[in-house]
C-alpha cells in the first residue's frame, strides 16, 4: 500500500509539473468574471419578481365553475412565469443574452402560454393580470403591457421605456410600477401607470437606490445589438401596493408624496418588502446575513450565510443568496448563486426558516428547462390546481 501511494505521489507530481502555467490567466478570468457578473445580475434581477400578496382575495373572480376548495397552497409556492432556457450555444456565447420567451401560467387550467416579452411581473392578487415589458431588442421600447392570464392577450400602454426589468403590479391590478432612467439628469425614478386610463405619474425616489447602469448585447435576428440597461442592486426592496409605494424604507402615496418611513436599522439594505408588514434586509457591513425586521423596527429573524474552508490556508466566504420569494409566514426562498451551477440551478431553491435558520432544498415544478422564474405563494390558487403545481 505504501509503495503504491509513493508511486502515485511521484506520478501526480510529475503530471502536475508537466506543463508551464499559461499566460494571460488573470486577464481572461477577469473578462469571464465580468460576463459571469452580468449573467448573474440578469438572472437575479428577474429570476423571481416576487412580493407576496398582501390581501388574499377570493379566487372566484376567475369565474371557474368548480367550487373552490380550501387552500392547499398554504406555505407552498408555484411558478407563475418561467423564462425559456437559452441553448448551450447561447450560454457559451461571450457577449450575448438570449432572446426572451416566457411561459406564463393560465390560472384556470394550470397550463402555460408563451409570450415574447422581456420580463413578467408577479400577478395581481386575483391572478388575472401581470405587467410585462417589451423585449430588450424590441424597437418599440417606450411602452409597458398588461398581460391577461386568462386569454394571453397583452394591452400595451405608451409609457417611458423601462430601465430595469423589474415591473410590479398593484395587488388590485389597477397600476403598474417600474424603474425608468432620465438620460438628462442620470437619475433613476419610478413610473406609475394607471392601467385603467394609461395615465403616467413620475415618482421621485429616495437617493441611494440608484440602479447600476450597464450595457448588454443581444442578438436581434442575426445582428448583434448593444443596449443600455439599468440593473437594480436591490430588486425587491420596493413594493407597489394599492394605495402606496414603499421604496428604500420610505413610504410614498401614489402621487409621489412622502407619507412615512419604514423603521429599518441604519444603512441596512432592503432586500424585499413583505406585504402586510416587515422587511428583509441585509444589515450594514454584514454581506452574508439576511435579517427580518418587523413593522416596529425589531429584528425578528436572522440568518447568516457563510461557508468556510478549514484547510491550512483557512478562509471564509460570505455566500449571498438571491432572494426569490416568501414561503409561508416564516420562510424565504433563496437560490445560492455562488454554489449553483448552470441550468439546473433555476429549478432548485432553498427554503430557509428565518427564525430557526433551518434550510432545506425545494425542487421547483417547471414545464421544461428554464432560466428566470417568477414564483408566487400558492395561497391564491384553487385547491386542486395548487395541489397539482405547487412545490
Amino acid at each position, binding site marked *: *500500500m505504501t509503495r503504491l501511494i509513493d508511486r*502515485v505521489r511521484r506520478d501526480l507530481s510529475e503530471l502536475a509539473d508537466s506543463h508551464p502555467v499559461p499566460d494571460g*490567466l488573470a486577464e481572461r478570468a477577469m473578462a469571464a468574471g465580468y460576463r459571469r457578473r452580468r449573467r448573474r445580475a440578469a438572472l437575479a434581477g428577474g429570476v423571481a419578481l416576487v412580493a407576496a400578496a398582501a390581501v388574499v382575495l377570493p379566487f372566484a373572480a376567475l369565474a371557474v365553475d368548480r367550487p373552490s376548495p380550501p387552500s392547499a397552497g398554504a406555505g407552498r409556492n408555484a411558478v407563475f412565469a418561467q423564462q425559456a432556457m437559452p441553448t448551450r450555444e447561447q450560454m457559451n456565447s461571450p457577449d450575448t443574452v438570449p432572446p426572451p420567451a416566457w411561459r406564463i401560467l393560465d390560472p384556470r387550467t394550470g397550463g402555460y402560454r408563451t409570450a415574447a416579452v422581456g420580463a413578467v411581473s408577479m400577478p395581481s392578487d386575483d391572478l388575472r393580470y401581470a405587467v410585462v415589458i417589451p423585449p430588450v431588442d424590441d424597437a418599440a421600447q417606450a411602452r409597458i403591457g398588461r398581460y391577461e392570464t386568462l386569454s394571453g392577450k397583452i394591452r400595451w400602454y405608451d409609457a417611458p421605456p423601462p430601465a430595469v426589468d423589474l415591473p410590479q403590479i398593484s395587488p388590485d391590478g389597477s397600476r403598474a410600477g417600474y424603474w425608468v432612467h432620465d438620460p438628462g439628469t442620470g437619475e433613476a425614478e419610478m413610473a406609475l401607470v394607471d392601467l385603467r386610463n394609461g395615465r403616467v405619474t413620475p415618482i421621485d425616489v429616495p437617493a441611494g437606490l440608484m440602479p447600476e447602469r450597464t450595457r448588454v448585447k443581444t442578438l436581434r435576428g442575426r445582428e448583434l445589438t448593444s443596449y443600455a440597461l439599468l440593473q437594480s442592486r436591490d430588486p425587491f426592496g420596493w413594493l407597489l401596493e394599492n394605495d402606496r409605494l414603499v421604496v428604500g424604507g420610505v413610504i410614498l402615496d401614489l402621487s409621489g408624496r412622502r407619507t412615512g418611513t419604514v423603521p429599518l436599522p441604519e444603512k441596512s439594505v432592503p432586500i424585499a418588502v413583505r406585504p402586510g408588514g416587515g422587511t428583509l434586509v441585509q444589515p450594514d457591513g454584514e454581506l*452574508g446575513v439576511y435579517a427580518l425586521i418587523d413593522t416596529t423596527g425589531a429584528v425578528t429573524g436572522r440568518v447568516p450565510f457563510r461557508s468556510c474552508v478549514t484547510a491550512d490556508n483557512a*478562509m471564509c466566504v460570505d455566500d449571498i443568496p438571491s432572494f426569490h420569494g416568501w414561503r409561508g409566514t416564516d420562510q424565504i426562498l433563496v437560490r445560492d448563486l455562488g454554489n449553483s*451551477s448552470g441550468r439546473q440551478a433555476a429549478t432548485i431553491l432553498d427554503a430557509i426558516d428565518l427564525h430557526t435558520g433551518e434550510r432545506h432544498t425545494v425542487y421547483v415544478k417547471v414545464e421544461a428547462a428554464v432560466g428566470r422564474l417568477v414564483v408566487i405563494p400558492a395561497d391564491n390558487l384553487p385547491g386542486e390546481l395548487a395541489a397539482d403545481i405547487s412545490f
Partner: protein
Amino acid sequence: MRESERAAFSEFVAGSSGRLFRVALALTGGHHAAEDLLQGALARTFARWRHVHGNPEAYVRRAMYRAQVSVWQRRARHREVPLESVHERADHRDAYGATDHRLALRSALLRLGPRQRAVLVARVLEDLSEEETAALLGCSPGTVGSQLHRALARLREIAAELGVEREHRLIKESLT
C-alpha cells in the same frame, strides 16, 4: 469593479497561478482541461472578489475541486482528458522499463472517476488530512477514507490491466 481591485486580483493570480495550475493539472490530467478548470475558478473568484475574505487561493482551490466533481461543469471538459496523448509520448523502445510502468500508472490515474482522483490529489499530492479534504470536497471524512481506499484498489487493477495489455501489444508488434 474598481481599478485597485483589478490590480489586486492580477497580483493574486500572478502569485498563486503556479501552485493552482499544478493542482488543476493533477485533477484533470491535461493542460487544456486544466486551463479551463483554473480559469473557470478564477472567473468565479473575480466575480465575487469583494466578498472573498482571507486567502483567496483557498477559495479558488475549493472552486476547482468542486467543479471537478460536479457533473454539470465536468461534462464540458470530460472530452478533453487526453488519455491517448500520454501514450503518444511513450518511448516504445523502453517496453519493459520504468517509463512504461509510469505511463501505465498515469493512464490508470486518468481513468479513475473525478471524485476518486480529486481525493487522491488532495490526500496524496497536497497532503491534506481527511478532514481538510472532506471540507474541500463538501463530503464527510468517512467518505474521503473510503474513496481513497477504492481509488488505490482501482489503481492496482487498472495499472495491472494496462501493463498486461501493453506487453501483449508490444509482443504482437514485434512478431509482425
